[in-house]
């Protein structure tokens, strides 16, 4: 007869038990000292605010590698500081160190007075105003949109409705095709009576949403995680890191009812975005109107937004320059994992740098709300030549000069000429990281 635990050593067992108790005690002592858990510490400046929304510009950390600013659009669920959770695990700091000019939208915490905000208000209102604010602040015609999760879906919709303002589109773990049954969240959302939920609450409490997320993996998220935590509880730094993530997980803003209603009914249940029948205000959203370069990032082990929901974007857009990037990991690991810091952030920066226009517009005036279509063509030309550029070193971007041969109106030609100046490319210093060998992402 086998004894399952015959390898146990009694003294070791005592040690194990007393270790656990000791760690709990020490942890309690450390926890009582915790008053402030710092997150989102990368220096930034407020440049625009509207209702509960605030728009920040991060202080540049390195010589500019990109003329086109990057606007990060985060999801309405949870808070954007996850991208800058701690200095040594900061997606944002990484992008800044690689020479990107980064802006970020903070949606704030909706209250009952925001219950009527719709998807149209968020996308054609807030995001559009933020894009304009960034264009004005950075003195550029266009921005590169980087949407995270639901923010990625919003960014895709925005890019299809306002392509003249979006130079590049990057989506990170963002759903576009909601027909997949690969994830519990998708299944549950499809059978949920969101109308009853919204009618009962107005602004749906974040805690209610969070309970749903915890139910996805109840044993791991409610028990194992905290037992595992005992092993790091004695170490103040590790404990603080754990608490930063806890802070983020349970810092859940409420959801504006009308927006949530449409998101669930039209997208999760109706899959209208992929079908091309989504209506926002008086406009129908057609992802086929997206022609700018796109980078679609999905996580292979994403239990919240499965790859099938994310990858679909590349089949729905008309862009010729489209890249699919597989991140080996889960939904959250995309932003805070070690691999993310080491691989993903540089990959994004490189992708952006190779699709940049060399110089910002010279006009001191604020860009118009709806810029003339004249600027669209030259950028398209740049896109065209930059198409295979993901594997190319930035310094080889000289073929941009081809853009000047594009037949365009005088205004367009001037613009294209500006874009074609190789000098501008070399002016933007190429960070060392881009010169190193870079593994091409799996397609």
């Amino acid at each position, binding site marked *: *007869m*086998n*004894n*399952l*635990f015959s*390898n*146990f050593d*009694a003294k070791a*067992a*005592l040690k*194990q038990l*007393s270790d656990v*108790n000791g760690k*709990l*005690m020490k*942890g309690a002592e450390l*926890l*009582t000292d*915790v*008053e*402030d*858990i710092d997150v989102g510490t990368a220096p930034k400046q407020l440049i625009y605010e509207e209702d509960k929304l605030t728009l920040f510009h991060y202080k540049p950390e390195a010589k500019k590698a990109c003329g086109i600013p990057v606007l990060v659009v985060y999801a309405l669920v949870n808070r954007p500081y996850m991208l800058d959770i701690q200095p040594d695990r900061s997606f944002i700091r990484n992008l800044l160190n690689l020479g990107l000019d980064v802006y970020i939208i903070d949606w704030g915490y909706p209250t009952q*007075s925001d*219950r*009527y*905000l719709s998807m149209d*208000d968020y996308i054609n*209102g807030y995001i559009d105003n933020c894009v304009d604010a960034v264009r004005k602040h950075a003195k550029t015609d266009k921005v590169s949109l980087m949407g995270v999760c639901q923010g990625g879906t919003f960014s895709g919709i925005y890019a299809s409705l306002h392509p003249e303002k979006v130079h590049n589109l990057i989506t990170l773990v963002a759903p576009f095709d909601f027909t997949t049954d690969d994830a*519990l969240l998708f*299944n*549950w959302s499809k*059978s*949920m*009576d969101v109308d*009853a*939920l919204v*009618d*009962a*609450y*107005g602004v749906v409490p974040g805690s209610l949403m969070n309970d749903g997320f915890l139910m*996805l*993996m*109840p*044993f*791991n998220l*409610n*028990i*194992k*995680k905290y*037992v595992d935590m*005992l092993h790091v*509880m004695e170490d103040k730094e590790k404990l603080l890191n*754990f*608490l930063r993530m*806890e*802070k983020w997980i*349970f810092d859940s803003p409420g959801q504006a009812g009308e927006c949530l209603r449409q998101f669930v009914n039209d997208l999760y249940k109706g899959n209208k975005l992929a079908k091309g029948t989504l209506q926002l205000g008086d406009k129908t959203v057609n992802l086929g109107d997206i022609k700018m370069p796109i980078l679609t990032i999905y996580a292979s082990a994403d239990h919240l937004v499965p790859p099938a929901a994310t990858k679909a974007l590349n089949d729905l857009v008309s862009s010729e320059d489209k890249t699919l990037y597989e991140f080996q990991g889960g939904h959250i690991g995309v932003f805070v994992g070690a691999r993310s810091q080491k691989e993903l952030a540089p990959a994004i920066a490189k992708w952006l740098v190779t699709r940049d226009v060399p110089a910002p517009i010279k006009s001191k*005036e604020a860009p*118009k*709300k709806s810029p003339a279509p004249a600027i669209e063509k030259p950028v398209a030309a740049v896109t065209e030549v930059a198409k295979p550029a993901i594997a190319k070193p930035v310094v080889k971007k000289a073929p941009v000069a081809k853009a000047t041969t594009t037949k365009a109106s005088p205004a367009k030609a001037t613009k294209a000429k500006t874009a074609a100046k190789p000098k501008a490319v070399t002016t933007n210093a190429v960070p060392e990281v881009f010169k190193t060998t870079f593994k091409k992402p799996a397609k």
Partner: protein
Amino acid sequence: MENPSDYLDGWMKIQQQAINALRDQALQVQSLYQNGATASDNPFTSWSKSVLEAFPFGADGNLAKDTFSKTQFGTEAMQKLYELWQPLLNAIRDKSIDPANYGNLTDPTKIKQLFDKLFNFDFDAIAQLQNQTKQITDLYEQFGKPWADVAKTQSANFLNGDYSQNSLQPEAIFTQMKASMAMFEKSTGRIFSVPALGKDREKIEQISKYAKALSTFSSKQAEYYQLMQATGYEGTQAVIKAVAAKVGAGEKFEKFDDFFALWIDSNEKTFNKLFQTKEFSEKRNAMTDAGFTARKMYNEIIEGQLFDLPIARRSEMDEVYKLVYDLRKKVKSLESQVQELKTQR
């Protein structure tokens, strides 16, 4: 290496020693955190209580406090798991183990306690809900005493039953909920067919509907809990099978943590399988929808009661919010037009 046959006895002694040591430590710590703790408390409880009260105020202080509570829960679950599987381990030690009887070696009551805690199942809450229904009917009985009396009797019957015993058996609770629902239909539910009583009839109807909605919610909640409990037992069986397979293959657990990992993994998979089913979605949605409906009705009752008072009601505030929303949009649109005109100049 200890004699394997004496291992578990040794383990129990060691655990007892460790708990005693923990209590000694707790008493020392308690002296540092005297606020809130009384001498009559269990030392560990009072220690926990004192520690929790020692956390600083403020958002992050609360987060640290919550995290500590969750960690305590995690370790408690681990300890409960150890207790739960003790008979199985004893059987292994006594060499009396028979894979066919593994299931009999686990105590269903302890399994239930573990799962109740994990999923925040609280059968007392169901009783409280019934009590709430009773209080509501008490409050408004002036509007329809005869019907309120019936509802009161029905709630009292439920509360006076041998609830504590039944609470250990989800099936019994479920049956009781069904019976309670049927009683409601036969008593208070009849109010819908009564003729008009005057100006307060609407209020009585609202209250009755709300009471009915609460009963429906309780019933749906019990059905949901029953499903989760049944899956909990299924998960336990899966662990037993996995252990049996390990025994059969001549493998060993190197430490309790390994067993804990197997338990987590096996249960997670079992529940994940349930979560994928249509039955789960239907039962969960039926429960939440019933809850939303009850909440909506409660709001309507409050609305009705506040009607004559100089207090803004929810529906009025909603109108204000809508107005503010529309005005915001209008102002933004006008501002944008002004800006455009300025630019054109």
